[in-house]
């Protein structure tokens, strides 16, 4: 009982703790692939700690919404990340939420962040908020279509059930799942503001999306936002890994040793995911903002196609 409780508590903390590391790994790999030395993989932790020590500068015009948003954004992202099974299927919160709820929580976070972008009343905040919402309008239906296709395969939208289903031997190689996988990757790239949709490391005015939104943040607020950002990336990587590569996740009722193995496997998966992401980002150039919908539209099409193919195959 206490063990279960401990595992319940470990999961959210682990998620939060690993998130900056994942970002660090991505950055490091990218740098190495670009033949740079790059910052240490713990650099994100250092950044966050430094930001936390600094005072926060608020614009004259900023309202309470502006300072409250970082807390809410981190909380919402964190809860969403906790809902994704990482190293064990029984997350405790499983029955409370399915994949749609996770999407909804992320949408809440985005909603708050976009409002915060508009709060100070600068044109950059507006640019960021407006573009972010535009991208979301394409990404969300795409995500839902993908969820739909998963639900068609697995008969449920509950993540742990999907993962267990994928893990089970009755599943052969499903074309729908492959399409969904590609779609999920595209969504993950778009939602996390990675290249080619957005460049997380640029502050070039006209190309910013996410960074423009949070331009006015500083100090502890910025730290929270950075942490939330990393957590979101982690969330997507874990999501993809648990849905498409659920092997090694500890089943319900496993002992502590099995859980330890599962945690290590999970970290390994994150590591692989981070490397692949870095590789992907390097091989592609950033797009113009108005081409992004077409890019994400591919995910939507894949989702639809996956759903349709699934419908066809079931009827055969």
């Amino acid at each position, binding site marked *: 009982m206490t063990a279960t409780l401990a595992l319940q508590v470990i999961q959210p903390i682990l998620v939060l703790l690993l998130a900056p590391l994942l970002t660090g790994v991505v950055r490091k790999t990218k740098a190495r692939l670009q033949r740079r030395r790059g910052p240490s993989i713990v650099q994100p932790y250092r950044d966050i700690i430094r930001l*936390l020590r*600094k*005072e*926060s*500068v*608020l*614009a*004259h*015009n900023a*309202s309470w919404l502006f300072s409250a948003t970082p*807390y809410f954004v*981190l909380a919402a992202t*964190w*809860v969403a990340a*906790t809902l994704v099974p990482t190293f064990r299927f029984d997350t405790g*919160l499983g*029955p*409370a*939420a*399915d994949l*749609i*709820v996770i999407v*909804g*929580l992320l*949408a809440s976070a985005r*909603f708050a962040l976009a409002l915060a972008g*508009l*709060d*100070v*009343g*600068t*044109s*950059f*905040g*507006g640019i960021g*908020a*407006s573009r972010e*919402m*535009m991208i*979301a309008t*394409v990404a*969300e*239906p795409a*995500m*839902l279509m993908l969820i739909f296709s998963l639900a068609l395969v697995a*008969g449920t*939208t*509950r993540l742990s*059930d999907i993962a267990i289903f994928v893990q089970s031997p009755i599943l052969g190689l499903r074309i729908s799942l492959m399409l969904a996988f590609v779609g999920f990757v595209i969504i993950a790239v778009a939602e996390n503001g990675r290249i080619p949709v957005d460049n997380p490391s640029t502050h070039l005015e006209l190309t910013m999306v996410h960074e423009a939104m949070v*331009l*006015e943040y500083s*100090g*502890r607020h910025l730290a929270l936002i950075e942490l939330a950002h990393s957590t979101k990336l982690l969330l997507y990587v874990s999501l993809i890994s648990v849905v498409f590569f659920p092997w090694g996740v500890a089943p319900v009722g496993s002992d502590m040793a099995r859980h330890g193995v599962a945690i290590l496997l999970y970290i390994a998966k994150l590591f692989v995911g981070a490397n692949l992401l870095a590789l992907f980002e390097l091989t592609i150039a950033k797009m113009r903002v*108005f081409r992004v919908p077409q890019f994400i539209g591919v995910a939507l099409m894949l*989702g*639809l196609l996956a759903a*349709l193919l*699934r*419908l066809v195959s*079931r009827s055969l």
Partner: protein
Amino acid sequence: MLVGNVLLCVAALIGVSCFAVWACRRPWANSAIYGASAVFCAVALAGAIAALVGGAASTLTLPLGLPWIGMHFRIDALAAVFLCVVNLGGAAAGVFALGYGRHEHAPQRVLPFFPAFLAAMNLVVVADDAFAFLLSWEFMSLTSWALVVSHDRSAETLRAGLIYIVMASFGTLSLLLAFGILAGPDGHYAFSWMRARGPNPNETMIAMFLVLFGAGSKAGIFPLHAWLPLAHPAAPSQVSALMSGVMTKVAVYAFVRIVFDLLGPIDWRLGMVVIGVGAVTALLGVLYALMQHDLKRLLAYHTVENIGIIFVGLGLALAFRANGLTAAAALAVTAALFHVFNHSLFKSLLFFGAGAVQAATGERDMDRLGGLMHTMPRTAVTFLIGAAAISALPPLNGFASEWLTFQAAFLSPSFPQWGLRLLTPASAAILALSAALAAACFVKAFGVTFLGRARSEAVNLARETDKASQFAMFALAGACGVAGVFPGFFTNLLGPVAQFLTAARIPAQAIAAPWSPLLPVAASHNSYSGFVIAGCLIVATAVVAFAIRLVANGASRRGAAWDCGYPDASAMTQYTAGSFAQPIRRVFATIAFRAREMVFMPAPGDTAPAEFKATLHDPAWDLLYTPVGKAVGFLADSLNRFQFLTIRRYLNLVFLTLVFLLTVLALWP
């Protein structure tokens, strides 16, 4: 006699209305009339809840109307649910107007009609024969028309009123024709008779389309929505809230009552039509809304979107029911009705907020607002909650009902028909798209209105709205929260309705333990617990805040905005409603509304300002209303010559008619 109690409330409301004719100019009239309206609505609400919990249908026949049938009234579970929606909205609007109504310049044009409007909506829901139904239906249109034209000095308002009343009558006449079919040649107008009549596929199909036109024009399905964004904003805000939040729901009630209850079995293809219409309505509704910069018009268009969502749910229910999938049908209908309830809450709330803003600043144009968060903080909070709820964000109620709709859509593989299997995922995607667009739309609405810096002087002079209005807004915001956190409680209440409409109900949810999740389909494990999610969010926020307080530098300093180093930008450089929507306009509206942007740059050296112009074409107007209007105008012009003929030509008409008729007689076999 529950129905008797409700009818007494209706009678009392009509009495208040008559009293208002006499009293409307007295200083105390505002409080008295609105207070009384709110009280009677609350009483009727209590009656409706009693009926919902009590279960048994209650009927009453009064010797009014057409004496040989009388006026039948009935409260069953379905009516009770909608009575709750109507009276909750009515009571809230009454309380809101206690304060807001004092801003009214011409109370004598509003006060007498407000209670009558409420009474009419109640009557529609309890009516149990075609005559009583249409009488109250059209009376509802009429009273709301009077409220729409209450600010009669503006030509735009009058135009809105005209279009509204014509469309309303179009709807009424469509319903009248539908009832003409259902009543049969002998005129059996009682609903009980219509229920008992045998099925007839052809008649059912025609009637279904007529009802879709009739109820749909009132609810605002595309392309019959054209009156809605004109009329809703034109009325005073408490009325806008009622029209958008409640009256459209009465239209949904009409659709459900006739199509689900009276028409009998319905072909699955018709369900497909409803799903398609709903999906198109949802998508176009929210796109329209995104293009607006008038706050109330934006909200009105947004009603169109939500009606689309509700109709998708109803269409799914029809399709499931036609295939005998009663459990799935129950889920879809529960989702749709739950969304009806939720939408009435947050749409009323948002219109109250818009009204408060309008009363405080005199502005409805978002491009002249901004920064109201500072001057009207409480209104801002409630509006924010409403905006989040309508954007379907967890853990609020909008998310709960959309989640249920998605769950219903996920059951589409059980359809035997190909068309439905393909259409349902597509419409689910459209629903997701419109939900995302809705979020964008409300980021825009809230952000441009309440956040940023003031764009006009009026904003700086604005003061927080009065206590009564605040109470109404906070109550509705609280209700949004409660319905989001405890959705199981509400779906349980909807159980009898689903049972009545689809002969099945979703599994009863355990509401004794608040954390137990909503589990609509036993077979799949899909579940959602608003309570747990809300709790997690609160705990997580608290943990984060506590941790930050513990470890971080808590100092804050106020400074100039950074803005990448541009100092002292004018408030005019902020993103406006139009610029916020620009990316979405480019992505979506280029196809839907043929949106075009043109930039006129002066030649180098020329000091003339550059000009930017965005044009939109409304497909409903371009393809439907304008041609119809032109056709009527053309015919009127052509026939108008008959006013100016000479006597000889008039005689000629008589002569030709005579000869024609005689020839017909001569050729008669």
